């Protein structure tokens, strides 16, 4: 190890006005780069403070909080039903899951049984949303490592899903579809056929997409073995969802802590096997998402076949009130993994404390450790492979 070179009158020190930030990195003569907050491949407003020696990074420190909208504070200020549209904004790419997490937490407090048909509507909407979210993830990841073509392919398919969800609830991004005790609207007429038509179409596209990018030699070589996260490390840093499964942990909340109607459905939990490089590398994280889309298609087919007739809303009091200090905890499998709501009820119509625990937040915590020794260009692939969404980190 060489002695750190001291250079008190360095131009890089003076150029950065933020002393607070510089204080955290011991100045050693390495280059200090700000990647972000405005950068096309940070997937939102995130800043990475990259300490590099040439092309090799010594560290990349994530600086988050640019998109902090105090959603947890807002949750304390509005009624339980009134908070539902805000949960859309927790994760705008997969808003349906944020809705469901909140609805389930309050339903647990209420002790309400959601009607079967409403549960089916929820699962159909969520699985469609999962496909849309994974398409964005896969498309942008390919684009971030230099393959531009798959992105419009993925977005084109996502548009079909957006149309479907728009028909269901009137919105293309922030759905506000779920209600406490059910869903806002029943499936429109002929919706089942449309979903099946889409699934038929999409399963063919998925094969095409795999030919185009997943098994593409250049793409595989770029990602195989990159930033592999061992199983223990993934658990220790609390990675969830596809990131965790890519590291070889076969855990899916839908399977292992079943909620809603998932126990009635047949599907597999894809796990990373290190086919191309090491277990838990960037390619595994990519391919697990592709495999999950296929499973979502399976779930959609079963839901459409099994959906019963009946009510879509349970009997829920108009004013929801609890005694102070009651608390509930809900866990759902979002597109970005285990999403958890911790709700403490207040005396009145508002919650006393809402805590949203999201997959992206903990995924960001691991970047500092993983980035050590990677190339700068690999940082982009690493962020994309973890599928972080900035508003979900900051909330």
């Amino acid at each position, binding site marked *: 190890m060489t002695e750190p070179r001291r250079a008190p009158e360095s131009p890089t020190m003076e150029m950065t006005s933020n002393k607070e930030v510089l204080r955290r990195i011991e100045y050693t003569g390495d280059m200090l780069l700000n990647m972000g907050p405005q950068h096309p491949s940070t997937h939102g407003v995130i800043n990475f403070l990259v300490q590099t020696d040439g092309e090799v990074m010594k560290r990349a420190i994530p600086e988050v*909080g640019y998109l902090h909208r105090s959603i947890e504070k807002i949750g304390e200020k509005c009624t339980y039903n009134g908070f539902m549209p805000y949960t859309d904004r927790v994760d705008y790419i997969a808003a349906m899951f944020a809705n469901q997490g909140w609805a389930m937490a309050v339903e647990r407090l209420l002790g309400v049984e959601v009607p079967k048909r409403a549960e089916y509507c929820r699962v159909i909407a969520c699985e469609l949303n999962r496909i849309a979210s994974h398409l964005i993830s896969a498309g942008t990841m390919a684009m971030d490592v230099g393959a531009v073509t798959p992105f419009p392919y993925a977005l084109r398919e996502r548009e079909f899903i957006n149309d479907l969800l728009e028909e269901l609830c009137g919105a293309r991004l922030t759905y506000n579809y779920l209600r406490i005790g059910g869903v806002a609207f029943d499936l429109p007429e002929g919706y089942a056929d449309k979903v099946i038509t889409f699934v038929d179409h999409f399963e063919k596209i998925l094969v095409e997409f795999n030919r185009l990018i997943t098994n593409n030699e250049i793409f595989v070589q770029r990602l195989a073995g990159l930033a592999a996260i061992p199983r223990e490390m993934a658990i220790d840093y609390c990675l969830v969802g596809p990131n965790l499964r890519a590291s070889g942990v076969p855990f899916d909340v839908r399977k292992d802590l079943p909620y809603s109607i998932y126990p009635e459905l047949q599907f597999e939990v894809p796990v990373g096997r290190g086919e191309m490089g090491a277990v838990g590398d960037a390619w595994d994280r990519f391919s697990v998402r592709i495999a999950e889309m296929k499973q979502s298609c399976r779930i959609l087919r079963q839901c459409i076949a099994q959906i019963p007739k009946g009510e879509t809303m349970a009997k829920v009091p108009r004013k929801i009130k609890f005694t102070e200090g009651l608390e509930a905890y809900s866990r759902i499998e979002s597109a970005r993994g285990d999403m958890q709501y*911790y709700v403490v009820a207040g005396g009145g119509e508002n919650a006393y404390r809402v805590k949203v625990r999201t997959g992206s937040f903990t995924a960001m915590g691991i970047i500092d450790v993983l980035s050590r020794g990677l190339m700068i260009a690999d940082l982009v692939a690493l962020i994309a492979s973890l599928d972080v969404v900035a508003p979900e980190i900051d909330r």
Partner: protein
Amino acid sequence: MTPEEIQACLAAKFGDAVGPLQPANKDPWVEVKPAALPEVCAFLKADERLRFDCLMNLSAVDWPKQNQIHVVYHLFSYARRHGFILKAKLDRAAPTIPTVEPVWKSADWLEREQFDLLGVQFEGHPDLRRIMMPDDWVGNPLRKDYAEQPQYHQISTTRESPLDGFIRLDEMKKRAAAKAAEEAAKAAPAPAPAASSAATATGAEAPAPKKELPQ
């Protein structure tokens, strides 16, 4: 293992430092003395029967009425597929608690978040600084008595409501009705001064029949 068994395990090992199982609506939890927390957590992770390998969630709740801040740890075990909830109650004026970052790495960011938003001091944390709010922000936003500063770097944190001065339509109708009733009440005694004694006697009922006036 069920929460009861886990609590029994902890009580056998740590005695008084671990409280009884509290049935809080749905999810039972156990209170832990803040000083004993690192040992309890290390035991929870290392013990072969428990194997809590993941800290899922860490939240803090401010209770000004009891003058306390509760720190809530949601644990999960991927190896044994069971969950458990720990709570530590801290003094609101000086909320300090030992960090669990050496036990679970995910505590690093989760603790920073609670430090930022509720001002809980995690002793021994390697990098305890604000994460959501800017470094020079004043106050902890999720405290119940949090008062926002009027300005942040000469940027006002409040603004005038664009709706100031506007009146709701139903409010407007109510006011018009009240005004009409008032005018009618003024006009009514003039043509019939003889009945003034009767009017004062039934003064409370007087505005009631004039409800048909507003269009």
